[in-house]
């Protein structure tokens, strides 16, 4: 079983198409929607966890690429500034998936970007703002629209 979390950018003209349905039905991948912002006539963004046979996940990604969907591993979009982080551990209490966790033997505070689902809770909780999520300006704009 192959599991990866991706950050997808859907072009405007795809928002009226049942893309995720095709992903599941034709490519036999399990789709876990972690975050989605889809608005008519706007670029949509989604964070999805894809799970399945490696070939199927690859084929699913190729299908999306063919539709002009921007694809990136979420892990490449989240990072911890190691200079700023002083390993206090405040983030470990709120990270829902233990992407930020304490190695108990030496109390080191570690970050595993592959586990991160991009929920962003750590960003403001971190007292030195060491967590960075570059999910794009569009994402933030969508966020403010949905919050209104």
């Amino acid at each position, binding site marked *: 079983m192959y599991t990866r979390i991706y950050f997808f950018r859907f072009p405007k003209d795809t928002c009226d198409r049942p893309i995720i349905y095709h992903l599941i039905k034709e490519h036999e991948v399990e789709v876990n929607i972690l975050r989605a912002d889809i608005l008519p006539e706007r670029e949509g963004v989604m964070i999805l966890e894809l799970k399945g046979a490696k070939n199927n996940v690859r084929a699913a990604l190729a299908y999306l690429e063919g539709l002009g969907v921007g694809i990136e591993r979420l892990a490449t979009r989240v990072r911890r500034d190691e200079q700023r982080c002083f*390993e206090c*551990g*405040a983030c470990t209490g709120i990270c829902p998936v233990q992407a930020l966790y304490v190695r108990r033997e*030496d*109390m080191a505070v570690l970050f595993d970007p592959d586990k991160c689902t991009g929920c962003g809770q750590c960003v403001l909780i971190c*007292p030195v703002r060491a967590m960075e999520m570059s999910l794009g300006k569009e994402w933030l704009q969508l966020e403010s629209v949905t919050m209104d």
Partner: protein
Amino acid sequence: MTTKKTYEEINARIKSGQAVIVTAEEMVTIVREQGVKEAAKKIDVVTTGTFAPMCSSGAFINFGQCVPTIKASKIWINKVPAYGGLAAVDTYLGATEPAEDDPLNKVYPGEFKYGGGHVIEDLLKGKKVFLEAKAYGTDCYAARKMKKEMTLDDLPHALLCNPRNGYQNYNCAVNLSDKVVYTYMGMLKPNCRNANYCSAGELSPLMNDPYYKTIGIGTRIFLGGGVGYVTWHGTQHNPNAPRTENGIPRRPAGTIMVQGDLKQMSPDWIKGLSILGYGNSLAVGLGIPIPVLDEEMAAATGRGDDEIYTQIVDYGNDYTNGINKTYGEVSYAELKSGTITIAGKAVTTASLSSTVKARKIAETLKKWMQEGSFFLHEPASLLPGPG
């Protein structure tokens, strides 16, 4: 025969490279394996450390004159207000002061992106800060305003001066209310779903000298990556807090006031903080060498996380209403395991104090003494003890 050592003897051994120096973590194992008697004989100094938010921090700064001269009465550094009620170009910049245009908690929970602590960190990073001052003007200080960009090197004088640091023990914070709270102890989820604590436990300076037998005015310490001194007992110093049989306080007790020349410190060990919904602060790295003068000090420095306890306190309702109630006692060994039990329920713990950095401070102090570049300084007067 019981062991007795003096500061002079230990310093002489540091000078000749023969002193035996261990960290407070190492001392726990030594005392457990070899006993107090043997440890007192063998070990000369135990080094401690802590690196955590310490709100009662700030810097005295002299920013130099301009022509015509000024008696600054209102001062801002990078838009952060600093105190103007001192002599002409002296000021005190507090770590928790937010930038004047910060929206504070108007948009709740406030982000507090920049404050006094960040100014201190920027100075340490060698960045230029923008200083503005206003004055009413006098015959001897005619200028009414002043604006200049300055770096730490440009400042004639910069002294980190923290009226309360190094709390001997601190609360374990939970939230028993039904809504989320944003506190100086971090974000606390409703209905006791997480617990935050803030102490280096067995590595923490005052935990290793519970009755202040070696720490006092003049104790030389690691402060912010450089050398500093304990200059008084800190504000809220409370030696009469309840203690366990081993003498270690079970709730917040002793504190220290510390000072050191900012110019020899490093941004690795002094960091400006933005605590969501609460405000700005400063993470301060400090470490104190504890001389093992006798068996009592060997025993004290040998206490482990499983022998050090703190109280569970509710920050959802009790704390802000001055209700002094505890919801149980937990050891730092339990807190550091990641889960504690409160009223039969497992609760996730998180620390606001960095064990990794505390250990590194203790190791740095140890290295300085092994190299013969740091010596103990006997206090002129010890911190007030219980009584």
